[in-house]
């Protein structure tokens, strides 16, 4: 029970609060996703410092959680004092409140029977897919076993090392391939498992899938809102159909559904099902914000979100780095031509800095 509470705290509440700090738009899904991405991005930066300073896993986690906690507390204190100075009343509830609550309230209070049924069906199927993972054991392939072992080794040995020589009593775990060396994703999972006070296998196979599946549908919900605006019925049908597609896409070894519902915690899966679709969504918002100054998310905010998501993507092995860079490059070309705006496309280049640094690191390591 304590582990479940700690899990909710560290992987839902704290990322959401971090999202509140970063995202001004009152959108639960966007705040959670950007918060989680910034969580991963911050860990990625600290991971390199941790390697340089020969840190143990628990030391890195302590610094990481302290940094995140300090940012959140500082933000709310600032908001409190600014509100007080302006003579406004400060309420944490209103800060945390999301427009999604009223959207769901509207569905169940004032919508027709069809919308209610479709919404309930969509939510039920998504929750079924997420919580089913608690009761089943998905078959894991050879590579994934290696990654699970890696996480388990780091958690049990209290080490962040996947590379390097024995130093101050801290030794290497595996002589890993270069593409894994600069990834902070598995140390991140190991740290989270330790923090949750739960065995890393239980964490990976039971806890994480529930969260990631819900987060993946959160990205889909962002797209639904982008395409269908206030049309609740269409949004619900979209999520329902997407959930059905995922459920029946097991004829292919590399499908979205298989990544989401089987290898959920794998680095490539999180890249495939959460990070890359989120990057696509943010790029659309980015170009919209450039064209329309009244957009709910400002242009500079969008740029920052893309930078954060790029950093999170770069933290997920070489695969994340390559695919993130390709995706953003093609999106920049497409939108520059479609919208006839070259400047925002060119401005995306600096946001790709984490990818360049990562690739440079991989090439020069050792």
């Amino acid at each position: 029970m304590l582990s479940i509470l700690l899990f909710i705290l560290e992987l839902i509440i704290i990322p959401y609060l971090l999202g509140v700090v970063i995202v001004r738009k009152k959108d639960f899904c966007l705040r959670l996703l950007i918060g989680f991405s910034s969580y991963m991005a911050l860990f990625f930066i600290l991971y390199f410092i941790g390697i340089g300073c020969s840190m143990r896993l628990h030391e890195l986690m302590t610094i990481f959680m302290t940094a995140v906690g300090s940012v959140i507390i500082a933000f709310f204190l600032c908001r409190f004092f600014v509100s007080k100075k302006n003579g406004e009343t400060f309420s944490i509830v209103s800060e945390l409140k999301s427009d999604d609550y009223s959207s769901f309230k509207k569905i169940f209070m004032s919508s027709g029977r069809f919308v209610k049924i479709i919404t309930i069906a969509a939510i039920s199927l998504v929750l079924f897919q997420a919580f089913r993972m608690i009761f089943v054991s998905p078959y894991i392939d050879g590579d994934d076993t290696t990654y699970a072992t890696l996480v388990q080794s780091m958690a049990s040995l209290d080490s962040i090392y996947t590379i390097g020589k024995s130093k101050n009593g801290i030794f290497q775990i595996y002589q890993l391939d270069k593409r894994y060396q600069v990834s902070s994703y598995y140390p991140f999972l190991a740290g989270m498992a330790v923090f949750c006070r739960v065995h890393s296998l239980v964490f990976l196979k039971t806890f994480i899938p529930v969260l990631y599946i819900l987060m993946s549908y959160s990205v889909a919900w962002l797209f639904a809102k982008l395409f269908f605006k206030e049309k609740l019925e269409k949004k619900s049908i979209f999520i329902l159909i997407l959930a059905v597609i995922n459920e029946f896409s097991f004829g292919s070894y590399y499908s979205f559904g298989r990544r989401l519902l089987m290898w959920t915690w794998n680095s490539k899966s999180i890249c495939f099902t959460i990070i890359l679709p989120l990057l696509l969504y943010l790029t659309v918002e980015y170009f919209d914000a450039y064209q329309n100054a009244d957009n709910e998310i400002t242009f500079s905010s969008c740029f920052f979100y893309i930078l954060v998501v790029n950093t999170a993507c770069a933290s997920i092995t070489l695969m994340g780095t390559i695919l993130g860079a390709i995706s953003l490059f093609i999106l920049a070309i497409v939108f520059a031509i479609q919208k006839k705006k070259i400047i925002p496309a060119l401005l995306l280049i600096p946001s790709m800095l984490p990818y360049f640094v990562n690739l440079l690191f991989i090439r020069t390591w050792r």
Partner: protein
Amino acid sequence: MDHVRTISSLFWGQTAFFTLFIISMLFLFFFRKKWKKAYETYFWYIILLYVLLLANPFTLKLFLESYFPGDAELVRLYILLPVGFVIAYVLTEIASEMNGRKKVLVLMIFIAVLAFSGKGIMETGYYIKPQSIYKVNDDGREAADIMQNDVKKDIEKGLVQADRYNSKGEYISAGSPVYLEAQGPDLYDTTRLVMTEYSNGYNIKGKFERGGSYFFGIMCYADWRYIQASASFISSDEYTTMGYDSAWLKDYYLPKFAEYTYITFEDGDGNMSKGIEDTGLYHEIGKTSGGYVIFKKTKTIDTSK
């Protein structure tokens, strides 16, 4: 072009989703004015992805040579295709065009088409009933306990450094139940890695790096203390050469895990084989059906030569 064809068929597999995807793209193109936002988001992004990357043999060759060693890795580029989103969007728009009962009927037809176009997770057998909270099978846990207890003994004897395992001595890597879990439907990749016993004496660079690192068909390293494998597929000769001179075995002939030391014996054909002796019977590891074997490294082999 072979790579283009291979990775395309690998990605789409035995589903009709490719057809659905193409139809959805056509709908997106024909209704581009009405569905402007989705068209702007997806259509040219997907077309450009295909032109520049997925259907471009030159780019694929470049990637193949630089980062992705084979088609199985190259197919990951398809991760960039938002297949589900495009199909779901088009079907949603079409269903929403209907009114009243027609809408319900069309939606049900769409769901049925999607169900028949692919394969459900429940019918593929990839979800297994968990045998423990770790979601690994009982044999796996048994083998993990063996390794864990063995490490504890070695720590007590001073044969390995305790700080390399952990201070608690529980569920340490060597004893993690993770190793034997992959006994799913595809048993081809049977050898599983086990604990690293780091030693300065080894020079594992070169021979065991990527490209030249495939030892018994999988990527593994010279300093692993234990290796667990399926007893059906391995040949003990390969392991003894690498210094794995001790084993625990559980197979058709020996249904409980027991520790054995290899011996060399003459088999029925007059050949010298390596295996174990069990109550007067010689049993060659690798000539059995099913079961597991755990190998333990007892000798240091310099693999740099």
